[in-house]
């Protein structure tokens, strides 16, 4: 197989219809259609609205990505798609499209893990991932610390949120402060003008007996809400900028503290941060500061690659092809709770046969362009 496989990746796990094309670790196209505006009035992603939007956007986004990359579909070495985790109905649109596309083109299909994709995307920005890599993934859907000795085959969960995702906490606090949805960017902006030490909000799960790498943001969220209410009930103005800064500081403090600790404990000298919250400017700054102090190299992709996109799926798919991982079957399911320990979903007939993906060719060889 080619050293630098040309792979198209499809991502529909939440509200972004993403189609990316990569050649090895080089990004060629990153086409996105988002339904975020349709969700804004609901204050959160509405699954059925997202699924409907994916169906509408799917084919136009694939065609846009091919055009942007300047490649033809027949030159692709494989089609990758997010098989999970994510919203079941939303995932199903992408998985069905990927299967149809791979089948029509006679290409192997790779159902891959959304979280592993978030890590692998950094290859497009900073070159091949160091092995192992420690990854902190933070978004509206996930908050996880993952250790990845091999992004195509071995991803180990170190810790995760036991209640709300970090991004969810941003959304909820933004709602309490009447700042709209999504909450991340607006809180980041207001926090820059506030005092992060104005209010001492709690740092969840940081006691000596608490799990070292798990997160909890629910208590923080309640504490912030109570504080705001108390002000309102007393008829006082709420210092929105100070609240935003102090809340953000509490989240970022816990995230970076635990990530750096995990790196030290495991002897890993690289930390990558991904997911939508990685766009947060304070998270980037504090992670930089703490990593430098600890002698850890920080890798954070540019914001557009941190949020959900197709390029990250293509990046992991290309790595699957490059390392001869087995392709998926045509029966591939969308799995809304795909475990993080499964970086991809190999075909049924392939347990233990890493170098053999002939079944794809059996079934689809010469379907087209033969």
């Amino acid at each position, binding site marked *: 197989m080619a050293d630098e496989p040309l792979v198209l990746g499809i991502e529909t796990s939440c509200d972004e219809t993403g189609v990316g094309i990569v050649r090895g670790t080089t990004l060629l196209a990153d086409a996105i259609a988002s339904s975020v505006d349709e969700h804004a*009035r*609901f*204050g*959160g992603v*509405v699954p*059925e*609205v997202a*699924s*409907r939007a*994916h*169906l509408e956007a*799917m*084919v136009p986004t*694939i*065609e846009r990505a091919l055009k942007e990359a300047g490649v033809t*579909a027949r030159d692709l070495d494989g089609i990758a798609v997010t098989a999970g985790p994510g919203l*079941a*109905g939303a995932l*199903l*649109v992408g*998985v*069905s*499209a990927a*299967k*149809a*596309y791979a*089948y*029509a*083109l006679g290409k192997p299909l790779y159902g891959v893990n959304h979280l592993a994709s978030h890590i692998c995307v950094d290859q497009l920005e900073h070159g091949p991932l160091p092995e192992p890599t420690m990854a902190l993934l933070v978004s509206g859907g996930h908050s996880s610390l993952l250790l990845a000795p091999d992004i195509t085959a071995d991803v180990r969960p170190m810790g995760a949120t036991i209640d709300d995702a970090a991004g969810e906490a941003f959304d909820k606090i933004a*709602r*309490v402060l009447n700042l709209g949805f999504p909450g991340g960017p607006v809180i980041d902006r207001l926090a820059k003008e506030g005092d992060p030490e104005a209010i001492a909000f709690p740092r969840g799960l940081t006691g000596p007996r608490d799990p070292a790498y798990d997160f909890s943001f629910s208590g923080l969220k*309640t504490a912030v*809400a*109570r504080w705001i*209410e*108390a002000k309102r*009930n007393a008829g006082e103005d709420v210092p929105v900028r100070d609240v935003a800064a102090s809340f953000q500081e509490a989240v970022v403090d816990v995230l970076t503290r635990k990530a750096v600790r995990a790196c030290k404990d495991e002897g890993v000298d690289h930390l990558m941060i991904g997911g939508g919250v990685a766009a947060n400017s304070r998270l980037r700054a504090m992670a930089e500061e703490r990593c430098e102090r600890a002698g850890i190299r920080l890798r954070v992709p540019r914001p557009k690659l941190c949020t959900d996109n197709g390029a990250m799926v293509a990046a992991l798919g290309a790595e699957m092809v490059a390392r001869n991982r087995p392709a998926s079957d*045509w*029966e*591939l*399911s*969308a799995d809304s709770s795909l475990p993080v320990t499964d970086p991809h979903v190999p075909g049924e007939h392939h347990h233990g046969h890493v170098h053999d993906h002939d079944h794809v060719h059996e*079934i*689809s060889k*010469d*379907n*087209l*362009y*033969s």
Partner: protein
Amino acid sequence: MLLLAVDTATPAVTVALHDGDSVVAESTQVDARRHGELLLPSVDRVLAAAGLKLDAVTGVVVGVGPGPYTGLRVGLVTAATFGSALGVPVHGLCTLDGLAYASGLEGPFVVATDARRKEVYWASYDGSRTRTGGPAVDRPAEIAEQVAGLPAVGAGALLYPEVFADARGPEHQSAAALAALAAEKLAAGEELLPPRPLYLRRPDAQVPKNYKVVTPQ
């Protein structure tokens, strides 16, 4: 001419090939929960049975519903993606029209499929090719008067015999019927539907309740 027809708007995952004269091969599996897993292997099986490859297809026909959304979208996105990859047109047909065509009934009758939540998707016909009303989604009791005394086709009719007294088969959608109807319409120069879903219901979207007060008052 070689039409590939797919329909996933009902519990049936159904695929057929039609060469303009007759159905060449077909596959129908009834499993309401596995549309995503079953459709592509069915397409592969139907092509293999016909000894043909996907690039021989000159057009794709897809049932656009109405039907439960998650399954419905599997067929629609598959058809659209095939159309794009193959560079062939994708035609939509109302799923209920396929059942009507398969019934071969003359005169007035209705078609009803299961819309879940104690409702049916239904339409009325005058002959197997002529829809006269619908499609719509309603509770059976609410349309009892309109359908009284009429033959009724489809799983939705069989499910509510108290309303559809003259319920009969076919129970399930068949892509073979859908393909034959499409071939007939295309030959007659009739325009088919765009391959867009007929949801008939707005998405379930609860606007979250206003910020809940957490401090004891």
